[in-house]
């Protein structure tokens, strides 16, 4: 096999970086919210967040290794696998700052209500570090899914082929990056946000319809 033309691996088109979608709608389960209306509102927010994604890095697997030395030589042993990680998203922003509003609401659930420094001990101005019970109860529903599509089948009239699903469990929004406002710039604003996850499951979906 001297040539790429005889190498059957290259008979299929390459994977492309733009054939993907992100689904945030499983970040919170229905039972997390006190009312159906609040659940519906958050479901809409999370749909918008998925529509606004520009980029995300997925797929890292990593394990620790330790050196074992003997008699002047070294070999390595794999020890603990790192199951946790970070999901860093970049979002487009619209002129109503919709993505900023949504990320702020989600940040207040996972980190701190923004009025906490001014709070007078009322229940609504909590710091979740001191009240994890709500989040622990609903840990299984904190799911973000990244779906990668087969570039050879993107016809919107048919079922688009989801080739791989990257499922991230136990997600928490850790923070949002700052963004630049400048009179010297004609750029559109983007927002970056980082989610922590507890573990990632990668699944094949060769013939599933779009979820």
């Amino acid at each position, binding site marked *: *096999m001297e*040539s*790429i033309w005889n190498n059957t691996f290259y008979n299929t*088109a390459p994977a*492309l970086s733009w054939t993907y979608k992100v689904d945030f709608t499983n970040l919170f389960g229905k039972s997390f919210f006190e009312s159906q209306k609040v659940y519906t509102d958050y479901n809409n927010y999370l749909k918008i967040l998925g529509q606004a994604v520009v980029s995300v890095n997925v797929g890292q697997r990593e394990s620790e290794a330790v050196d074992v030395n003997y008699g002047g030589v070294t070999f390595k042993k794999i020890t603990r696998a790192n199951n946790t990680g970070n999901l860093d998203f970049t979002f487009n922003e619209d002129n109503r700052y919709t993505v900023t509003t949504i990320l702020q609401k989600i940040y207040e659930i996972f980190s701190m209500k923004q009025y906490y420094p001014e709070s007078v001990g009322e229940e609504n101005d909590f710091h979740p570090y001191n009240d994890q019970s709500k989040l622990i109860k609903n840990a299984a529903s904190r799911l973000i899914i990244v779906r990668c599509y087969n*570039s050879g089948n993107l016809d919107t009239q048919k079922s688009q082929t989801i080739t791989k699903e990257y499922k991230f469990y136990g997600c928490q929004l850790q923070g949002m990056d700052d963004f630049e406002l400048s009179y010297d710039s004609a750029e559109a604003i983007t927002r970056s946000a980082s989610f922590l996850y507890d573990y990632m499951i990668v699944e094949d979906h060769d013939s599933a319809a779009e979820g």
Partner: protein
Amino acid sequence: MDSIFTNTNVFNLSDPMGTWLFDVQFFNVNPTAGGLNKFLTEKSTNGDLVVTSCTLPGHETEIVTRNYFGSEKSYPILRKYGGDCEMRFDIRAENDDNATLYRITQVNTRKLVDGADRIIYHPEVELRAPDQYAEIVPMARFQKVTIGLINKTKMYGSGDDATQKKYHSQYDLHNCIVTSFKFDNGLDYNSEDKLTCSLTLHYDIWSYHSDVDVTE
């Protein structure tokens, strides 16, 4: 094959398409929008607009090339249909056509220098026609601009078909945004040239139809 007159294929082919057999129509985002949108839409529909030249759309496909053991193979990965269309207009001397300049320049500049402390409106970032400040011309954005290539044997109908014109091809440019306006020449006592201006529209995608009937 000795002669063009004995080669029946060449002899029977239709005449080549002349680059002068075309017209352009503008379709508005908002039917009630004013300013340049309304002006060009109306003028193009009733035939008063003279677009003297216009570029046609195309597409580009990006490829990626992969290598293996000294050989390479390429794959298409993304096609871009967007592009820029440059049109040229004659500026006419008649009074009602000075309105072309007013609308194309987009903002009534007298309002900028009258000393009033006000925020200058930015029509270029609006996606809807504004409902106030009539002197500020709304953003120039068109839902569709069509460039029709005319079949020269059917340019004019006869009798009941006098107002029908048959295009053999039509290019539709979608989501057109005016990105540039300029005068091609300056004013000059020593020149015999006519005053023309160029308008550049950026479009995101284009489509093509053939044998389109258009009733004016």
